[in-house]
């Protein structure tokens, strides 16, 4: 019998150390240290062979380029590997819980992706004849119907490309409505102190002066302060509900009444619609305009698959000012029109070329239809239940910012439990990375000191929430045990250690400069 006497060992080495280890080249467990694509393999080669152009260069006169163009010279596998490696260093909702409060990082169902890739949706062009795309127009009409029904509002503008773009659309419609009735004196937009930064930015961009509304000690709009600030100079208020503290504005109907009594409009920031979809119709609360982030409530990808979509629902008073184009039911069926009709005669203009982002419309509609009205209601219920579960399981080791009563879809903690420990909110968040969890939103909302805003969404199971809770409880225990070094140096195990955000902001390097290209071209 012959046998291999020097076979492959199958057991770990019994004397292998477990202490700190650094690789020789900066690589890490099958991941190489990644250079910029410009620096990876040089610009001096090209990944493809192009034929010599048969155009006479003389035709270009003095426009012929004299220097090397300086593009990275990678072959297809090199370029592919570069981006896949970068993606492996990134975090994604497809990898794990992504608890960024105020962002609603929920699972993007694969069914949405399959349907968005149907050639009838994916391969159409905005300039092809409308008679060739009746299906796309019908999908837009049905999506609009769902959005109007879920919000209790009579009209929707589908063209805005994101939440902040939707805010701009809503505030422009409000300005147009004031101007149409000859009310030019209104120069102020009121915004609560806890608002998303985009709210005051939007109002200022449209030309309004922004004034803050105070907040009560339990995290809601201060009605007395609102009433004192409302007057003939106020064009609109912008309020998020649930607000950025994860709390329902329980005086919302009174807020709307006071606003309308002062002749102003009520813009609702719909970023947190996920918490109330199927349960509350903003139209019933007195809202005049609200954007809906399809990438939050209706599961389209955040920053994936092209531009986003932030449709804006409008009240009767604002509907006539909706931006072009409009989807209308005509004698030949649905049609997109730019021609002013009776019901849309006073449009303030348009928000984008063409009709909006079809890929997002398909994904959102797929999500609505696969969940149904009852399923969407459960989305809101589960999102709120999950956040309250986290709040309940963490409140004895961390300090909830608003301990009294339940929260909505996000659990907000402050840093009073870290006081005197030598550990900051930033340190704690970075230590979560070492434990395998992406940090929560930090230092927002600004009204809560050292804020930690956790939004689990309805995506997560009880088991996953428990793993997350155990990691945070273990870290909280380490804080109390005085294990400060674990936090001050965190993250210890990420591809890069703590980055110097201050230096990056004070001395930003915003572009790669091809010194090497210039040098080599001269040779």
């Amino acid at each position, binding site marked *: 019998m012959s046998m291999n006497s020097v076979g492959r060992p199958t057991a770990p080495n019994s004397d292998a150390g477990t202490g700190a280890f650094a690789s020789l080249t900066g690589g890490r467990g099958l991941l190489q240290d990644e250079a910029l694509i410009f620096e990876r393999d040089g610009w001096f080669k090209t990944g493809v062979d192009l034929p010599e152009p048969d155009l006479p260069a003389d035709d270009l006169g003095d426009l012929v380029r004299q220097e090397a163009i300086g593009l990275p010279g990678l072959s297809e596998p090199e370029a592919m590997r570069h981006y896949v490696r970068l993606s492996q260093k990134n975090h994604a909702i497809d990898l794990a819980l992504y608890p960024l409060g105020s962002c609603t990082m929920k699972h993007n169902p694969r069914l949405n992706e399959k349907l968005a890739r149907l050639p009838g949706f994916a391969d159409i062009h905005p300039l092809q004849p409308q008679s060739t795309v009746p299906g796309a127009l019908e999908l837009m009409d049905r999506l609009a119907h769902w959005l109007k029904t879920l919000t209790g509002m009579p009209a929707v503008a589908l063209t805005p490309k994101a939440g902040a773009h939707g805010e701009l659309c809503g505030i422009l419609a409000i300005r147009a409505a004031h101007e149409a009735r000859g009310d030019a004196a209104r120069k102020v937009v009121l915004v609560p102190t806890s608002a998303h*930064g985009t709210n005051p930015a939007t109002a200022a961009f449209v030309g309004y002066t922004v004034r803050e509304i105070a907040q009560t000690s339990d995290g809601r709009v201060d009605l007395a302060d609102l009433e004192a600030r409302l007057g003939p100079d106020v064009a609109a208020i912008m309020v998020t509900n649930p607000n950025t503290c994860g709390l329902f504005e329980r005086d919302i109907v009174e807020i709307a009444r006071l606003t309308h009594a002062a002749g102003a409009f009520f813009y609702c920031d719909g970023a947190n619609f996920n918490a109330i979809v199927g349960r509350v119709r903003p139209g019933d609360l007195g809202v005049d305009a609200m954007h809906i982030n399809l990438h939050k409530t209706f599961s389209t990808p955040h920053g994936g698959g092209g531009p986003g979509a932030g449709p804006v629902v409008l009240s009767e008073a604002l509907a006539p000012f909706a931006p072009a184009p409009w989807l209308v039911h005509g004698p030949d069926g649905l049609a997109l029109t730019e021609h002013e009709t009776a019901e849309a005669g006073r449009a303030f203009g348009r928000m984008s070329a063409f009709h909006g982002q079809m890929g997002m419309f398909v994904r959102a509609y797929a999500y609505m239809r696969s969940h149904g009205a009852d399923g969407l209601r459960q989305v809101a219920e589960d999102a709120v239940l999950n956040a309250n579960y986290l709040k309940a399981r963490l409140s004895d080791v961390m300090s909830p910012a608003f301990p009294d009563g339940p929260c909505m879809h996000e659990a907000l903690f402050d840093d009073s439990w870290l006081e005197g420990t030598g550990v900051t909110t930033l340190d704690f968040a970075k230590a979560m990375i070492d434990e395998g969890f992406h940090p929560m939103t930090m*230092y927002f909302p*600004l009204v809560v000191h050292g804020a930690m805003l956790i939004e689990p969404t309805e995506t997560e199971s009880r088991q996953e929430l428990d793993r997350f809770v155990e990691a945070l409880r273990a870290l909280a225990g380490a804080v109390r045990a005085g294990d400060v070094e674990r936090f001050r140096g965190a993250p210890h195990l990420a591809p890069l250690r703590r980055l110097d*955000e*201050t230096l990056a*902001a*004070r001395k930003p390097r915003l572009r790669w400069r091809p010194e090497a290209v210039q040098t080599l071209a001269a040779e």
Partner: protein
Amino acid sequence: MRFTKDHEWVVVEDGVATVGITAYAAEQLGDVVFVETPDVGKTVAQGEGFAVVESVKAASDVYAPVSGEVVETNAGLGDSPETVNADPEQGGWFARVRLSDPAQVEALMDRAAYDAYLGTL
């Protein structure tokens, strides 16, 4: 030196108020990375936003603690915003304002009152 509840400080000399943000404000903001000061010659009203300070955490309005005309701004903050953290109540000043209503200064808090106010936060 006088103080506001919004954490600005004022020092008056010959009818001109030097204005900045307090050590408490600088500490709360964290590392300051950018300061936008008003244009010289601009007229500001007490309580209105007249400068912006941006830190790694947030961008915040700085409110004019007094009314008047901006006569000078701290040019050094452009290249060295970190001065606001290192020396908030002296070298990190934002602007000098020629007072239009000197009585406003008297109504602001003195150091003892400001310290007592910080104790309530």
